[in-house]
């Protein structure tokens, strides 16, 4: 498999249990790819393996380089970024400091202020709360901060784990609008989501993960009309 990022026959184990089994997927430059599936299907595990927080077997290629043995930090330096499900914000630190730390991996610091201004333009709420501790933000603001912090690293591939989790419908729409708009920046996105309809409406391509295996894949516009998926994940009959 080719593309800007690809996983080939990736298997991830917790002790001796295979949480993800022989998964292969590929993302082209500027593409939004989603992985949908039920709770416990292995979606988060897949992202943890992609960023290097979990060890995996199989092949991981990013921009033609094998990153399978690289540390998390080396992958981040190559601009592979993850916004995890728990957000992992620095709750005692200010919004501005959280954003600044997002740019930690950039060696060229000259554009950091410009990127910060762009993030504030995209999320004006963060600018209003820049001196506030991250731990005091609302759920939606925390997600905005997590996204903004990842954008500070100027990612080439941004992996988002359940960005809509626990958010009000209005905020969810805003978050997905933001994700769609990132395509214009040329950022490739790997989106893991339980909200399958919103994910497929935003993505170009989709994979369906069940019990650790890819059971279906195809262009998102086709998957959204697939009768089986409509019944299983899209709330249809």
């Amino acid at each position, binding site marked *: 498999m080719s593309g800007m990022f690809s996983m080939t026959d990736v298997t991830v184990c917790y002790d001796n249990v295979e949480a993800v089994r022989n998964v292969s997927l590929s993302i082209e430059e500027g593409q939004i790819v989603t992985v949908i599936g039920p709770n416990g299907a292995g979606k988060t595990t897949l992202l943890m393996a992609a960023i290097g927080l979990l060890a995996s077997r199989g092949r991981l290629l990013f921009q033609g380089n094998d990153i399978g043995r690289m540390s*998390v*930090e080396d992958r*981040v330096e190559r601009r592979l970024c993850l916004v995890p499900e728990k957000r992992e*914000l*620095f*709750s005692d630190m200010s919004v501005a400091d959280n954003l600044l*730390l997002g740019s*930690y991996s950039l060696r060229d610091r000259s554009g950091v202020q410009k990127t910060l201004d762009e993030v504030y333009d995209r999320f004006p709420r963060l600018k209003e709360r820049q001196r506030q501790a991250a731990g005091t933000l609302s759920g939606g603001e925390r997600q905005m901060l997590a996204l903004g912090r990842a954008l500070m*690293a100027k990612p080439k591939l941004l992996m988002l784990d359940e960005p809509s989790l626990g958010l009000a419908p209005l905020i969810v729409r805003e978050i997905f609008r933001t994700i769609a708009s990132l395509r214009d920046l040329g950022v490739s996105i790997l989106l893991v989501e339980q909200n399958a309809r919103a994910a497929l409406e935003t993505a170009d391509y989709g994979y369906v993960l069940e019990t650790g295996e890819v059971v279906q894949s195809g262009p998102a516009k086709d998957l959204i009309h697939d009768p089986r998926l409509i019944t299983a994940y899209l709330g249809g009959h």
Partner: protein
Amino acid sequence: MTSDIAAILAIDGIATGAVYALVAIGTVLIFTVTRVIFIPFGDIAAFTALTLAALDAKRFPGTGALVVILACLATLIEIISMVRSGELRLLPRALLFYLALPLAVVGLAWLAMRAEPPLAVRLVLALMLITPIAPLLDRIVFRPIADGTVLLLLTVSVALHFALVGLGLLFFGPEGVRTEPLTSLSTELAGVLISGQTMLIVIAALVFSGLLYLFFDFTLVGKSLRATAVNRTGSRLMGIRPARAGTIAYLLGSLMAGVSGILIAPVNTVFYDSGFLIGLKAFVGAIVGGMTSYPGAAIGAVGVGLLESFASFESSALKDVIVFSLLIPILIWRSLASLHSDEEIEE
């Protein structure tokens, strides 16, 4: 006890507490960034005093040999680790940081010694010689078990302290030392005579605490250390390397312990094993701050200093018993407080 005596004891207590505060802040710094309760910090303070005393006596201190041995060991371990992970491309960097820099420091100190440097230079040399020790020990001892439990890390930390005490005897000998005062000035405040050394101790503690505050709040590296302390996984996802953050924390902590050793050496006789009590009392102070708060640790350490000073007056023999008995109510209070917050989290 008259008010005059109380004032003298209070000033003495604040000065002793300021020394403990420096070590306590270093202890909190290391713990929050690496989860290691670094018991040998007191040893680092004592070794600095012994190093300075050796330099004063125009002898090259045993610290030099200790740094050379630790640097060689750390380099060897780093190379083995690189071979195992297939990352030999990082070898030049490892040779620079683990071998060349420590050896350069020792070489520089050795050369400087020949010129019979003044006290200010000897102070810098003592600090330069002492600061590589903790980061090298981190590479040799703690990094291979960095993912272990806090209890495991603490057990190893205690073992390391005893190993260092043995090495201290080997490198510095059994004699106690007291260095010359850094200043002979004194002043009178509200009828109480305050020595320049006491003032220097308090000023140094304030200056270093202030510098640490500026470092944490106004530099990206300082913020990255805070981030690692707050959220290790989150910081890794920003590209902050925990090992590097740990090394910086050990360097800073060593510097603070070294300064406290230099400050305490003119007022107390320091032996190769004097560090244990310094470190333990600073640890009590750090526990008052919950092992996470710098101001809390500093206040706790000054409290320990004051308690020790007044306890010495009442019963010199029982002063340590009184200070360490303080731990029991604090630990009970802390355990109740943490139980409360756990319940809050569950809710």
